[in-house]
């Protein structure tokens, strides 16, 4: 079958794909649009293609934080004589460590050692941040806050417990650095070495082996973690512009 005036075979699949893709030449597009009004088959194909494309685009992912540095390191090391292949990632080891952290075995071992121990929720939050494994797959109670003013996009979220303290966890990235946000109805205990914050915001700041911690109690109790202190501050500014109901 031919579309009148188009000069080529009626092919709803091909035409719909080209049309939805925006790759149909202008003249053909105008003709096809006229044709669409009277051809239910083509109309349906276009609707389904549009819906499928919208769905597919939701699958787009950012590369994980750290992968860029892994690639940099792998490329740099590959220049060394005799090194043709570098494997930075060791998934099995990472998985075992993550499992240990999640089960609390490693956590207990680490914090039974000498020196002052972080309060349990803070220790659990730090372990989660460092292991890239947040505990628990349950959905979060809060909707994710919009931290895009800080250049951050949501990676994932969930409901969890940090040493018995129920929290919502949100993972963000700016493509290079991770920011993890914990929200709770309870007040977070102070981390070791925490500095009380001056001014209107009631809370504290602390650092633990390169991880910056920013905590406050309003509008809800929150704890932000990042290896980039400036990014954590920007994330906090964006968070504080978000309207949050208290729990």
């Amino acid at each position, binding site marked *: 079958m031919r579309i009148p005036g188009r000069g080529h075979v009626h092919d709803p699949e091909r035409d719909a794909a080209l049309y939805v893709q925006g790759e149909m030449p202008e003249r053909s597009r105008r003709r096809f649009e006229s044709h669409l009004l009277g051809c239910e088959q083509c109309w349906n194909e276009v609707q389904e293609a549009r819906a499928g494309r919208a769905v597919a685009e939701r699958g787009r992912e950012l590369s994980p934080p750290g992968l860029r540095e892994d*690639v940099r390191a792998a490329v740099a090391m590959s220049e060394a004589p005799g090194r043709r292949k570098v494997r930075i990632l060791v998934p099995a080891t990472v998985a075992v460590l993550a499992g240990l952290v999640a089960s609390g075995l490693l956590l207990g071992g680490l914090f039974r050692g000498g020196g002052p121990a972080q309060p349990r929720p803070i220790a659990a939050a730090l372990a989660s941040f460092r292991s890239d494994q947040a505990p628990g797959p349950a959905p979060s109670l809060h909707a994710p806050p919009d931290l895009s003013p800080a250049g951050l996009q949501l990676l994932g979220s969930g409901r969890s417990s940090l040493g018995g303290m129920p929290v919502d966890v949100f993972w963000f990235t700016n493509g290079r650095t991770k920011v993890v946000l914990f929200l709770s109805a309870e007040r977070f205990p102070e981390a070791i070495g925490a500095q009380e914050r001056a001014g209107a915001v009631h809370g504290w700041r602390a650092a633990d082996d390169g991880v910056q911690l920013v905590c406050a109690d309003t509008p809800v109790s929150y704890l932000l973690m990042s290896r980039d202190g400036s990014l954590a501050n920007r994330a906090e500014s964006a968070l504080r512009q978000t309207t949050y109901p208290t729990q």
Partner: protein
Amino acid sequence: MSNEEFLHATLSAMDLVYNIARRMVPRREDAEDLVQETYLAAFRAWQDHRRPRKVEPWLATICLNLGRSSYRHRARRPQEVSWEEMASFQTEADAEAEALAALDRSRVHRALWEISEEQRLAIALVDLGGFSTKEAARILGVPRGTILSRLHRGRKALGVILTDGASDRRRMEGWGS
């Protein structure tokens, strides 16, 4: 020769390579390995003065070739979902919002593994990678009409899978009739 020139030219395409790698191998850590392998192979070619006019299709081709050869045995449907993927399921206030939330990355990722590899790769290159169908045809070494057909059928299949999945989930959570 410094590797900085190579990295400067190619690192901006990392998200693109990662998205293709995720459709070549289902497990996140394998995809990360595949990205590294892709960059190492590209760097070796770069050192041999084989430099492309456009890095994106070049890296995509390397990633696809490596994925097909070295990672073929790993290309099964995902058996497990990481915390991050699971955690991205959100509880929403009403069924409509829930249905929209169901169309999140992890569900799309798994749905992409329900369709054929040919359709999945067409979608990965065009919808996720931003290539035109002409470029995708060149990268995959097939006629453009073939890409259009795979793309169209893949998109339709994806819509069907996710619509059915959302309905099932609503039923399970008691939000459906």
